[in-house]
């Protein structure tokens, strides 16, 4: 097509006319146009209107995903009008998105500690990981786990059911589990920069911790004798034992923090002196320690009147006063309660808290108030002290007045107003004022030049904590006024980030805008929403009995037991979205800095549907992009999902509003991948892990021979799920689509039934053994067998699920190590999978077309295969080809899912496909246009074939096969046209419709008609297992050496023998199956196969004296084995697999082998006992040898250039994720087949 010229953002561009604007912009990398509803694999839809662009001359904005470019078009993709429209579109979508991005617990925590994440980790018993996660935001969980104000619990959704989850106690639980501080991170290398932190309270400690981790040298300057700030000097021992605080502070300072105590800012040093001493930055976290006044006369000069903070601090410094008589505490906050409970422990006879409002308005934690009550503390609510009554200088009583509460403006606490004439006198011996604290920041004023707020706190930029002085940052109570420890920690962390950024980049910037959707933002959460959740009361914190408490300063809260903690984790409602990191809506919401306030109105609320074991459908999150509906209907032609209702109520649900299992859903889960939000998500085996990060590992599915690209999303070796990746959508042959097995099947890898240690059978049971012992035992047994019965008495078996490297080593072990040709795959041997059936006609039994040829064919014939159940991705390719106009012919004696889609269904009698194929051959030869001479030139045996097919007349075919004449005529019309390209798809491993000669007859037809290879032509042999093709290529067969070398190829055999430094054993078909059945085989070494899963196979094992089985999991066969060697799973090792269409793909190691060794190591170690030729350093080493040994090669260096391909011979390999569908796929050229074995037409 002639290119056209268009202008995009002022730039003149050449483009192809049938492309959309979006395609052109993306191809030429002109802009990053946002879109939610576009999927390049399906037809443009144009519903989200995020991708709008402006085309000059048009009033409206056009969706770039669906608008084709035309010559002379002038396009703008990024002006203010477009941005504003996109932003509004997002705001509108989010205004009807009744969902939480993150848990309210995480959002309400000033430090944003990922509570949902650590609760999930605790629920899995991953305590260390939970602790590490907490410490990403809060380095003092043991202390904070005891004293926090728990905004998280105040906002916890579980309150809609009964009570909040005991989040803080769970944090304390994991922190206490690791009380010895086994988990210690490694700070980055020192970067030479020095930071001064003024004040060693929680904020200073936090800032120090995160800066130290980044490699900064931190010095903490503390006025008081010890670090800890208000945690030490404000919180009484019975709430936070100082031993715990000491340990936790030490854990931080041991990472390399320098400490100077007893030094005071303003006296001993100033900010300026620190700077001139070489500190690069200063963090001010001096706290707020001076007590506020009660505004009573003689407050400061009356004996018996004490300031609350001073009282608590003095006690901490060892100054334990003897109190007696009545102690009155004034105030309603936690300090008041702390002072009251402490006073009780200081032997006061009676303690009363005097508070001017009622219990409902008390700022102190409810649990603290309750504990105080239990200990006998009295409360005088609605009471205000007005005068100190003293005798000499000694306090005698206080005069108080009763208050009443008057309504205040909305949002404020009720206003206390004195009741006239209600004055009364309360005799007290001590009066402790605990009504608040002030900040003393006089030292930074004036000469230091640090700006203050009008109430005396340090003025900072809230996003960065930067003060008005360059390089000086501040946080904690000195900035906020007396607030909470967790806020101080949050600010310390922010300041640490800012300081690091300031020192690296010269300035600190507030973090990027983040938008979070929350259910509570719309309106009150309806009461009914959580009705379906069974009530399950919150675990009670075990405590010291109330009567024991007051006589001691021992910690009152004893901590959750493990059992309590695990139960408590079950109460978490997992509000935060599982798709947090993959949500496109969230990504764009941040990017466009959305604000949904103006659009808050009606929001649709739906029940979350978990009726399907693998899916969670949450229509609340649906944005009607329709990608799932369209993928399901257009790609899969299933339509399990659909839009329901109209207008604002329109939403995606399972078709006809049934549950998903009630539809015709095939559980492929491709809807999960296409969903841009969390409306369709995976129903995990584990809890939703909040905002815990996932690593992406591209890999290859190993459930069948198609070798689809998959992506492991891994949190850790046992917490992962499988999805596609952006890359695989573009670069994989499966276009990122997966089937049920590929997406959900990998769950077995985290099964607990895993073999990790070798086992030796003793007295009918297995015992664990060391690797050395197991190996030695096995070797001794094998050697014993060989010396008694000769090498032919031992057989080695490898699974078609093993990698090429493993398979290659196994056959070499047999041939070079054990000196036997008894090498096979039990799967092939026992179930009679014929790997040789095409050897005589085309040289080897293999696919002659790649799966991509399906897309280029005019006619696709599927025989002995079911598609849906076995190979969904091939089915997708066929359906896609049909849309292009290709015809799909299905041979199947019974109705299967695929018949519905077939253009022509040949429902011939089972086993009669050969008859039809022979009939086709006959008709072809009878056609006048058929060029016999040309056929004879490239084939042999034509006349014999002709003779053989002669009786297969139309009427004979019809009678024998039961196929209607019209169907057969239609088939003929499709296949006889020489201009039509034809691909046959045949499952070699299936017995569904198989007859002995049908594959041969298919090949005869392809050879006759010249369609054995070439674009859009050929044979695709589907295989059952990931590496069924590799089994044959690697020579795991008594009839083949690696490279598909057969018995008669003496030159090749001797070449390989030389490479192996070995005279090869007699190359003969020894009939292993018979050998096992009748006792010729005495020892079997089985790798990755489970023949004993079928009882009928037991007969082959009756005569075996020794069985070694290697597998990753317990199987029927490991149960019977004498020695069991645990194997690595394919996730735990590197290796290559050959797909049914001969692409060799590398699978990388994702996690360490739980059994300690990769399988190539195990096999070569075993073989090493028999030969010196098994010295490898890596799987790659093995691969290099295969390259040399196998004439088919096993390219390790990417796709060869077409020019580099040897004439008449090519095999290509794809590196992970780099397959390029644009490049032509060559399996073998026709010359290759001719050069090997002249195409033989076999009778």
């Amino acid at each position, binding site marked *: 097509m002639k290119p056209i010229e268009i202008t995009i953002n002022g730039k003149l561009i050449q483009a192809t006319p049938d492309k959309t604007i979006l395609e052109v912009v993306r191809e030429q990398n002109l802009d990053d146009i946002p879109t939610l509803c576009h999927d390049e694999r399906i037809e*443009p*839809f*144009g*519903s*989200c*209107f*995020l991708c*709008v662009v402006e085309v000059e001359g048009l*009033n*409206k*904005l056009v*969706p770039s995903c*669906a*608008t*084709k470019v035309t010559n002379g078009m002038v396009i703008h993709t990024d002006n203010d009008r477009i941005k*504003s*429209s996109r932003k*509004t*579109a997002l705001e*509108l*979508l989010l*205004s*009807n998105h009744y969902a939480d991005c993150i848990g309210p617990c995480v959002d309400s925590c000033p430090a944003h500690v990922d509570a949902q994440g650590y609760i999930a980790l605790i629920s899995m018993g991953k305590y260390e990981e939970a602790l590490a996660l907490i410490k990403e935001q809060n380095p003092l969980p043991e202390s904070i786990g005891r004293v926090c104000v728990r905004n998280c619990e105040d906002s916890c959704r579980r309150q809609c059911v009964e009570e909040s989850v005991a989040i803080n106690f769970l944090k304390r639980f994991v922190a206490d589990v690791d009380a010895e501080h086994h988990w210690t991170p490694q700070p980055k290398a020192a970067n030479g920069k020095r930071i001064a932190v003024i004040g060693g309270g929680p904020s200073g400690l936090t800032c120090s911790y995160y800066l130290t981790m980044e490699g900064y040298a931190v010095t903490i300057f503390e006025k008081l004798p010890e670090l800890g700030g208000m945690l030490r000097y404000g919180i009484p021992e019975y709430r936070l034992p100082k031993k715990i605080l000491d340990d936790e502070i030490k854990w931080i300072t041991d990472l390399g923090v320098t400490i100077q105590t007893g030094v005071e800012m303003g006296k001993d040093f100033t900010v300026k002196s620190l700077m001139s001493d070489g500190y690069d930055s200063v963090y001010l976290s001096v706290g707020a320690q001076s007590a506020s006044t009660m505004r009573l006369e003689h407050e400061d000069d009356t004996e018996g009147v004490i300031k609350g903070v001073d009282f608590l601090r003095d006690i901490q410094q060892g100054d334990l006063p003897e109190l007696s008589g009545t102690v009155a505490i004034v105030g309603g906050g936690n300090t008041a309660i702390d002072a009251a409970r402490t006073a009780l422990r200081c032997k006061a006879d009676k303690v009363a808290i005097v508070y001017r409002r009622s219990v409902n308005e008390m700022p102190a934690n409810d649990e603290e108030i309750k504990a105080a009550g239990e200990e006998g503390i009295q409360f005088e609510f609605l009471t205000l002290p007005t005068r100190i009554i003293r005798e000499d200088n000694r306090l005698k009583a206080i005069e108080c007045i009763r208050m009443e509460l008057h309504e205040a403006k909305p949002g404020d606490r009720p206003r206390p107003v004195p009741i006239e004439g209600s004055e009364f006198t309360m005799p007290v011996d001590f009066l402790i004022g605990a009504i608040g604290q002030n900040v003393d920041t006089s030292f930074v004023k004036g000469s230091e030049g640090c700006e203050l707020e009008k109430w005396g706190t340090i003025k900072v930029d809230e996003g960065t904590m930067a003060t008005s002085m360059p390089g000086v940052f501040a946080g904690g109570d000195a900035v906020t006024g007396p607030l909470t420890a967790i806020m101080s920690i949050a600010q310390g962390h922010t300041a640490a980030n800012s300081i690091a950024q300031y020192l690296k980049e010269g300035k600190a910037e507030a973090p990027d805008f983040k938008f979070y959707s929350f259910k509570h933002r719309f309106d009150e959460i309806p009461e009914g929403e959580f009705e379906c959740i069974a009530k399950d009361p919150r675990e009670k914190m075990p405590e010291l009995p109330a009567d024991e408490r007051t006589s001691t300063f021992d910690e009152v809260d004893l901590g959750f037991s493990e059992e309590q903690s695990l139960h408590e984790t079950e109460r978490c409602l997992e509000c935060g979205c599982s798709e947090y990191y993959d949500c496109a809506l969230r990504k764009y919401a941040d990017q466009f800095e959305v604000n949904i306030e*103006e*659009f808050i*109105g*009606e929001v649709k609320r739906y029940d979350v549907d978990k009726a399907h074991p693998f899916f969670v459908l949450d229509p609340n999150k649906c*944005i*009607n992009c*329709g990608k799932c509906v369209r993928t399901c209907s257009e790609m899969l032609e299933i339509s399990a999902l*659909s*839009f329901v*209702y*109209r*207008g*604002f*109520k*329109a*939403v995606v649900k399972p078709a006809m509003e049934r549950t998903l299992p009630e539809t015709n859903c095939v559980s492929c889960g491709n809807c999960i991948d296409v969903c841009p939000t969390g409306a369709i998500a995976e129903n995990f085996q584990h809890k939703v892990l909040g905002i815990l990060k996932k690593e992406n590992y591209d890999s290859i599915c190993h459930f069948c021979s198609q070798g689809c690209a998959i992506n492991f999303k891994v949190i850790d070796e046992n917490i992962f799920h499988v999805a596609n990746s952006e890359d695989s959508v573009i670069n994989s042959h499966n276009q990122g689509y997966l089937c049920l097995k590929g997406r959900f099947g990998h769950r077995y890898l985290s099964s607990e039934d895993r073999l990790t240690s070798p086992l030796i059978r003793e007295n009918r049971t297995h015992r664990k053994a060391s690797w050395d012992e197991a190996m030695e035992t096995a070797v001794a047994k094998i050697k014993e067998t060989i010396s008694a019965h000769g090498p032919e008495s031992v057989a080695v078996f490898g699974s078609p699920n093993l990698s090429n490297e493993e398979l290659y080593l196994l056959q070499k072990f047999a041939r070079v190590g054990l000196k036997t040709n008894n090498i096979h795959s039990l799967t092939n041997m026992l179930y009679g999978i014929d790997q040789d059936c095409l050897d005589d006609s085309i040289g080897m039994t293999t696919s002659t077309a790649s799966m991509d040829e399906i897309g280029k064919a005019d006619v696709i014939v599927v025989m002995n295969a079911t598609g849906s159940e076995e190979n969904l991705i091939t089915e997708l390719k066929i359906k896609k080809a049909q849309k292009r106009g290709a015809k799909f012919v299905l041979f199947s004696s019974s109705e299967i899912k695929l018949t519905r889609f077939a253009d022509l269904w040949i429902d011939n009698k089972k086993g009669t496909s050969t008859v039809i194929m022979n009939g086709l051959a006959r008709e072809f030869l009878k056609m006048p246009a058929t060029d016999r001479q040309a056929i004879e030139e490239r084939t042999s045996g034509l006349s014999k074939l002709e003779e053989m097919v002669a009786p297969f007349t139309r009427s004979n075919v019809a009678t024998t096969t039961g196929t209607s004449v019209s169907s057969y005529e239609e088939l003929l019309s499709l296949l006889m046209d020489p201009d039509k390209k034809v691909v046959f798809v045949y499952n070699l491993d299936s017995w569904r419709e198989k007859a002995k000669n049908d594959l041969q007859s298919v090949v005869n037809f392809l050879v006759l008609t010249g369609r054995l290879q070439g674009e859009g032509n050929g044979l695709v042999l589907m295989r059952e297992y990931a590496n069924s093709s590799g089994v044959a290529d690697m020579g795991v067969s008594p009839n083949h050496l690696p490279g598909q070398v057969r018995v008669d190829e003496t030159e090749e055999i001797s070449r390989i023998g030389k490479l192996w430094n070995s005279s090869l054993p007699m190359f003969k078909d020894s009939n292993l199956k018979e050998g096992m059945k009748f006792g010729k085989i005495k020892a079997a070494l089985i790798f990755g196969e489970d023949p004993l899963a079928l009882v009928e196979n037991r007969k082959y094992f009756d005569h075996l004296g020794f069985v070694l089985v290697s597998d990753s999991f317990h199987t029927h066969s490991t149960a019977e084995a004498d020695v069991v060697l645990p194997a690595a799973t394919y996730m735990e090792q590197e290796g290559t697999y050959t797909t049914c269409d001969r692409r060799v793909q590398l699978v990388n190691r994702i996690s360490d082998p739980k059994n300690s060794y990769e399988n190539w190591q195990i096999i070569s170690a075993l073989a090493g006992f028999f030969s010196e030729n098994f010295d490898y350093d890596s799987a790659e080493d093995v691969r290099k040898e295969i390259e040399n040994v196998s004439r088919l090669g096993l390219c390790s260096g990417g796709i060869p250039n077409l020019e580099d391909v040897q004439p008449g011979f090519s095999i290509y390999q794809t590196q992970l994720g780099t397959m390029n569908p644009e490049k032509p796929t060559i399996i073998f050229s026709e010359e290759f087949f001719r050069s090997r074995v002249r195409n033989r037409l076999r009778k």
Partner: protein
Amino acid sequence: MKIKVGLGTCGISAGGRAVYSALEEEIAGHNLDVALQVTGCMGMCYDEVLVELVDKDESHLYGRVSPEMAREIINSHVINGKPVPEWIVKGKVVEETDTFFDKQDRIVLRNCGIINPESIEDYIAVGGYEGIRKATQNYTPEEVIEMVLQSGLRGRGGGGFPTGLKWRFARQAQNDKKYIICNADEGDPGAFMDRSVLEGDPHSVLEGMMIAGYAIGSDEGYIYARAEYPLAIQRLKDAISQCEERDLLGAKLFGTDFSFKIRIKQGAGAFVCGEETALIASIEGKRGVPRIRPPFPANKGLWDKPTNINNVETFANVAWIILNGPEAYASRGTEKSKGTKVFALAGKIKKSGLAEVPMGMTINEVVFDVGGGIKDDRKFKAVQMGGPSGGCIPASMGDIKIDFDEINKTGAIMGSGGMIVLDETTCMVDIAKFFLTFTQNESCGKCTFCRIGTKRMLEILERITMGDGKEGDLDLLEDLAHKIKAASLCGLGQTAPNPVLTTLKYFREEYEAHIRDKKCPAHNCVALLTYRILEDNCTGCTLCARKCPVDAISGTVKQPHVIDQAACIKCGQCYDVCRFNAVEKL
């Protein structure tokens, strides 16, 4: 003598069937030589049931006829030759004859109310199927298209795209199979032009489709009719079988190679299915959702084949054009809008019904000369044209001409012909809310702006009418409206904000009164109303107090009463019952 009874949906719902039976009985009872016949809607829906007595060249049209009146008409007029002048709305014997038809020019409605729609003979008798015969025998398809182009006929469904051009595109599309679709999914609130045509003259639509089929090279047509039009569908079905029986539909028609068949597809009443691509999806059995154009249906339509879609009224014009020549059609109307246009007059108008007027007539002429002016002689405030996609044209612009382009300039659209007349008691915010509620419910839900944007606009309008409007709401409304128009896939979304934008344009002060003064100037928005008793007028009759459902009115007999504003629920009963104009609406 011939007696015709209007049995369109309007006539039937006014009791036409009973009138018909009464006439039938009387005629049989007196053994009269009178042909009693059914006919379609004559357009004077305001005077249904209509009974027309035709004797030689003389016609007497009786209006608002009841069965009893029907018997009397037979006795007095037919048997005794004495017409009953007080019941006659049109005819020589009455002085004040109805002028409803005087300024009309009936092409589309040429047979409506005249012939029996259930009889193909009637249609043939007035020249039916001569158009298609002439087209197939005298003209090539290209010539037919040229004639339609020359006539200047533009799509009557609302878009106003030149019909001939549309046909030409479909003609030019290369394919062995093409379709004609008749869009009979009339869905605008208050519009019933297409229904009346289908009920009153179904054959004219079939003939129009056949001509279009011949012109573009199609042999199959679909009529997509809403299931809410059972009578129209029944008459279409009958008409199709009558045609098939007479070989007017089927293979090799009129001795040529032209073949044509027509099927009816009933829609389930989704407004959006009036949009071409959604309509096609619906016929195909899919969810009625518009898709992106291009490709246009002319290239890729029903079952991916080239498809030409026109609406009922457009097709009803076609045979007339072929028979009378394009020049006759083009001689009517303005420079760019030719021919006539059918309007469904509704709302606060005296003669609500169906009128066909030449293009170029002014709105005032339609409202006052044809429609008889405003009900109760209230003040004319505006006309709402084009249904939910249209807008309001204020009375001050009543001299504007009926012309596609002139009307577009006002911000309203010609639309399919709904014309709702509004008077001073209509609140413009409320009218905008009404139409937006309709589009919001009828949005297919595909596009973000149309699905959620119209909902949010509606919520803003709702709060304005509830007295909760805020400063900035109008800016927000306008901003959203422009974004919805700019970024929606189909006409429904692109025009949904029009009722709001035009009312904002011409009646902004009314919106502002709601927001700033918390007042509804039309005294229509309940939440903003106050009822007060005028002391001077109140006689203390106690009627209002007795009627008040919440006992909010107090007062003693013969003393002025008072309304407790806190208790008042603003139901307006006091206002309605007061005989002394003592209750004031504020």
